[in-house]
């Protein structure tokens, strides 16, 4: 995909994903918020698809929309209070202000980086995006990804799996105490 088609599809996706992301924080019903989050994640997968990263897009759906959000929804449908209950009130009113400030900081930082443009150019120079796209064209999407994961970044990969094991053990220990 290239040219005007790319631009148009980007803007459609951008508006849709921002709208669904707003839904996450604006819905009063926790289940609707969770559904909006799922929708946002699906739109994010479409962004990856648009960039030609088929593998990342599919894995995004598989892990976030398919596994993690199911667990979210599982808990929310079971435990969330009925939003039609008139006694329901916000017990943490102060968090809105803090969230707004932190959100502004994030947006500011990201736009500064984007507009100044330095990190992007440096990343492209450091990793050689040209060479990378050649590898992808030669070996295919997943093969290139697997090569990078298990040869270039194998140490980081192993450390990550260790961190996850520690997290699982931690959850087990905490769960057993209670």
């Amino acid at each position, binding site marked *: 995909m290239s040219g005007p088609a790319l631009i148009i599809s980007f803007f459609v996706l951008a508006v849709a994903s921002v709208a669904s992301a707003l839904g996450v924080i604006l819905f009063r*019903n926790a*289940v609707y918020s969770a*559904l909006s989050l*799922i929708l946002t994640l699906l739109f994010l997968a479409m962004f990856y698809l648009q960039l030609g990263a*088929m*593998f990342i897009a*599919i*894995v995004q*759906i*598989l892990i976030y*929309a*398919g*596994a993690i959000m*199911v*667990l979210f*929804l*599982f808990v929310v*449908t*079971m435990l969330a209070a009925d939003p039609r209950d008139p006694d329901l009130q916000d017990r943490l009113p102060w968090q809105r202000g803090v969230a707004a400030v932190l959100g502004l900081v994030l947006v500011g930082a990201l736009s500064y980086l984007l507009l100044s443009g330095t990190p992007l150019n440096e990343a492209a120079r450091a990793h050689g995006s040209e060479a990378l796209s050649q590898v992808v064209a030669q070996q*295919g*999407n*997943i093969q290139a990804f697997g090569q990078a994961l298990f040869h270039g970044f194998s140490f980081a990969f192993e450390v990550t799996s260790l961190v996850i094991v520690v997290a699982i053990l931690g959850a087990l220990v905490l769960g057993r105490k209670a």
Partner: protein
Amino acid sequence: MPDTTPTWLLVVASLVKSAILIVILLTIFAYMTWIERRVVARIQGRLGPNRAGPFGALQPLADAIKMAFKEQIIPAQAYKAIYLIAPVISVVVALSAFAVVPIGNSWTPGHPSVWDPWVGDINVGLLWILSISSLAVYGIVLGGWSSGNRYSLLGSLRSAAQMISYETSLGLALSGTLMWAGTLSMVSIVRQQTLQGQGIWFIVAQPLGFLIYIIAAVAEVNRAPFDLPEAEQELTAGYLTEYSGLRWSLYQMAEYINMITVSSVATTLFFGGWSFFGLERIPGLSIVIFAVKVAFFLFLFIWLRATLPRIRYDRLMRLGWQFLLPLAVLNAVVTAACVALGLPWWVNGLIGLAIIVAVLAITWQRSRQTRFAISKTGAELLPPSVRLVKSIEPELGLVNGGETAVAGVERQQALLQDGRVQV
């Protein structure tokens, strides 16, 4: 697909092929309901639907008309929008998962065209099926939650837990085949199993993987004996409780289409897809070969439903996490070692068979304690849950005044084994 194909032709071809595929899937769904009722009736010694048309073959049509004209009740306590859209999510997800399944050889082998009998051959085909079918649980969870009914909610939560538990084993079981195939594209996986590829169906290299896959697949599509979400004794009809009319049949449709999808994946990954010892070179025949293989698995689903009683919920979870998942990990490790060491396929197959035999032997040995209660004399009694007496101890064993206690016990045990004594 050749790069010279114009985009509009690709879009048109995909749309036409999708439309044809949806029509085929819906027809199979309609006739699966009829075939299932006939087969189950036959196994249970009944007749089944036999009034509408020859052999009752018009029954699906009659059912469709009935469903279409039924009132669709929306409960007052329901979340209306979600309640209405949940069955649609189920069906859409079930249909889109099928998009990457190749149902036949390309029309002109060696010359790919846009009209080949699959909607899309993407290089992450299998992951596509896994990720889309992992979304299937939303249709059920949302339907159950939005009904505003405790039975529905509990049924849907059970289903969510079940699907998440078995998805892990399912994916791991497939990974063994992927290691042999070396590709995720469904078309290439089939090509690997033809005579031009490795020349074997991957079932011979992955017997253990296949067994785990088929068990996990039955659980994943919520079919008997794993149809806990609709366990009517405990949960009325589970997430389906409040649904009626067309939306109820949409859920049924999703269930049957999912059945077809997991059968197709089993066929493609373990039984060579549309290949059959060179016969697949005739393109029309390859579709027939594929259909026959899938039909076998669909029959297996019906057969299982008619044969096995429903498993208890805690046992279902234990089976998934403590039995299937460790086995799937073991299979993945063994397969990875075989592939990495460059061993031939039959080594992997023999190791898999050995593990299956060992597991069966251990299960048989250990299940003696649940099938029988071992008495002090070493005799096998029926377990307390099955026999209708509280306990048989030697001092209780005097059934006839003249006999000694020991003889009485043995006699009573013999009677208990027959099932004749109901104290």
